[in-house]
């Protein structure tokens, strides 16, 4: 793979120094910020919610930073470069999802909770079981997502730096992991948020630069760009149908199962985003619900703009680089954006190409680092706040102990992430991301929506929807081609799959809602006089008593 990358017109070794120094500058700056922020982290509110001191714009940037992972930066650009319109289709789901978060989740959650999803559930229900459940689903989602990020990171780092040995690659993953642990444990939410902001600015800056350069090459005529992309993509021995390249069907249109799979994925993306723990905790870093709303608005603007630019990036790569080169560099197209940067900067032997390549690679590193830090923070917060402080210690832990537990679990989760990143390098991560979104959509979202808007919902219902949604999604994935019966599966040599789709959302999301409803109506109502729901409803809509 690495040798192939070097064949693909880019001799990365020359530019490795540049990439590494740019990346080091980023790391140094963010570490300084983190340490500064860490000095002012005194209590739990500082650690979990950055003291609730961020403005809407800052938080909007941070939300975007958390959301725009390496998968969406390099992955979507690559998918567009290889599959054209189908890759574009992917990014739309990621964006539309934010409306669910904006309209239904962000403000009520900010008003009613303090640090985690478990807070909102614990309002109306029996604390310990629902907090345990919320903690479990949070950690499951985070671990799957984290695994995908770390595995991706390992492969990506190797590609971008042209490292062929396992040792070098592993060292870098370990390095990335250690830096991430430092961000989270020293800086807490405040430090991590600043890392996200810096990263988001870098990412957007880099993308704008390349987008303008690409568009300039086609005289800002999008039609020309599309035409050139389709024409270039259909050339060569593994060229594709130019019509399908522009109207869809290359990736998902193979047969009725893949089509259904895409519908399933689309639903999971749209409904899952509002249940992703590292996104949810971002709503607590701002002082009021109104700021939470504004930060989501900013995020929608930034993310939307970013995805629009990835269209230019993806089609630009398809138009300017030979398809065979993209594939030989990385079969999934993940290196399309860096290759494009090299090409657009002047191509072979030019210093412009080298600098642009270095910039984009450094941005990609920063992206990995920041997203992993966000996920680690989310899962360690949930462990410390929901499970440790309120279940194990039954609410008797001091703030100091709770924050220490959060730091400890961040280290533990970081260590696991490093290990997985190093050793699970060959795992197919697409299934894991799908699983993370599906679990978020089928376990977390029903529970959040029911508890905010349905009076009759009770502890049994919450447990049923979380554990039910979680179990259905995990079991369906277990028996899908993600796990067995496919060359790219976790167990390629055995076959016990029977579920045809790779994404369980189509079944598991309705199942999650159904379980929550059934559990509630089949058990005794808890809140007979509606007093607790009254309080939750008034708080969530007016913001009364919010911290």
């Amino acid at each position, binding site marked *: 793979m690495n040798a192939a990358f070097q064949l693909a017109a880019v001799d990365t070794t020359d530019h490795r120094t540049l990439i590494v120094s740019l990346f080091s500058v980023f790391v140094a700056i963010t570490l300084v910020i983190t340490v500064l922020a860490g000095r002012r982290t005194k209590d739990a509110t500082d650690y979990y919610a950055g003291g609730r001191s961020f403005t809407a714009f800052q938080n909007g940037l941070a939300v975007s930073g958390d959301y725009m992972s390496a998968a969406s930066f390099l992955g979507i650009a690559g998918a567009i470069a290889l599959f054209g319109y189908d890759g574009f289709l992917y990014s739309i789901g990621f964006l539309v999802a934010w409306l669910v978060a904006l309209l239904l989740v962000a403000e009520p959650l900010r008003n009613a909770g303090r640090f985690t999803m478990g807070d909102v559930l614990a309002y109306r229900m029996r604390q310990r079981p629902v907090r345990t459940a919320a903690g479990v689903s949070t950690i499951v989602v985070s671990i799957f997502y984290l695994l995908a990020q770390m595995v991706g990171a390992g492969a990506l780092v190797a590609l971008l730096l042209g490292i062929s040995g396992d040792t070098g690659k592993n060292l870098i993953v370990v390095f990335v992991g250690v830096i991430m642990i430092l961000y989270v444990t020293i800086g807490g939410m405040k430090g991590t948020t600043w890392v996200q902001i810096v990263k988001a600015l870098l990412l957007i800056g880099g993308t704008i630069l390349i987008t303008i350069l690409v568009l300039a090459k086609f005289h800002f005529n999008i039609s020309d760009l599309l035409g050139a992309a389709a024409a270039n993509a259909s050339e060569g021995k593994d060229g594709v149908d130019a019509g399908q390249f522009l*109207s869809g069907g290359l990736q998902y249109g193979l047969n009725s199962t893949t089509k259904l799979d895409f519908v399933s994925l689309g639903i999971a993306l749209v409904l899952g985003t509002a249940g992703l723990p590292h996104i949810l905790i971002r709503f607590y870093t701002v002082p009021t619900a109104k700021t939470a709303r504004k930060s989501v608005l900013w995020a929608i603007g930034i993310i939307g703009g970013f995805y629009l630019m990835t269209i230019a990036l993806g089609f630009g790569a398809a138009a300017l680089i030979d398809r065979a080169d993209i594939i030989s560099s990385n079969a999934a197209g993940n290196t399309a954006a860096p290759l494009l940067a090299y090409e657009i900067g002047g191509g072979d032997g030019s210093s412009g190409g080298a600098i642009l390549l270095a910039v984009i690679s450094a941005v990609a590193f920063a992206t990995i680092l920041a997203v992993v830090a966000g996920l680690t923070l989310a899962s360690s917060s949930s462990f410390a706040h929901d499970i440790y402080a309120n279940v194990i210690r039954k609410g008797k832990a001091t703030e100091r102990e709770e924050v220490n537990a959060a730091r400890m679990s961040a280290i533990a989760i970081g260590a696991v992430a490093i290990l997985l990143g190093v050793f699970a390098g060959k795992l197919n991560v697409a299934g894991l991301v799908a699983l993370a979104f599906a679990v978020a959509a089928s376990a977390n979202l029903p529970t959040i929506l029911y508890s905010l808007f349905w009076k009759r919902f009770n502890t049994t219902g919450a447990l049923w929807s979380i554990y039910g949604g979680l179990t259905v999604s995990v079991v369906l994935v277990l028996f899908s081609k993600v796990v067995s019966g496919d060359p790219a599966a976790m167990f390629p040599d055995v076959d016990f799959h029977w579920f045809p789709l790779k994404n369980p959302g189509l079944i598991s999301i309705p199942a999650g809602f159904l379980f929550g409803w059934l559990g509630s109506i089949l058990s005794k109502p808890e809140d007979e006089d509606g007093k607790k729901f009254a309080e939750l409803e008034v708080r969530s809509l*007016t913001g009364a008593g919010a911290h």
Partner: protein
Amino acid sequence: MSTAPPTPSPPGNGSYVRMQESEDFAELRRRFRTFAFPVTIGFTAWYLLYVLLSNYAGDFMAKKLFGNINVAFVLGLAQFLTTFLIAWWYARHANAKFDPEADRLRAVVEADVEHASEDAR
């Protein structure tokens, strides 16, 4: 730091119940729900329609409108556009119709709760 409210209702819960039963609050809730719920259903349906069209109506989507830009591309960009528009529309609605009322009721409730907890002391 016990974060969640204790299971027995705190003093002042009565004020929340009174507020929830008040007509002002019913109006506030109505304003929120009559906007958020239909719009959510609307954009989800619009997105699903788009996904289904991309999946199952290849010929329609491939129709070229001008230059190399086809229906599929336009509809995709329309998704972006509607997302931005809905977000903007919601922000306007919330700022104009929702926030002032919510702030007013919040002040009422908090004053009431304060009062109740003083009584409890």
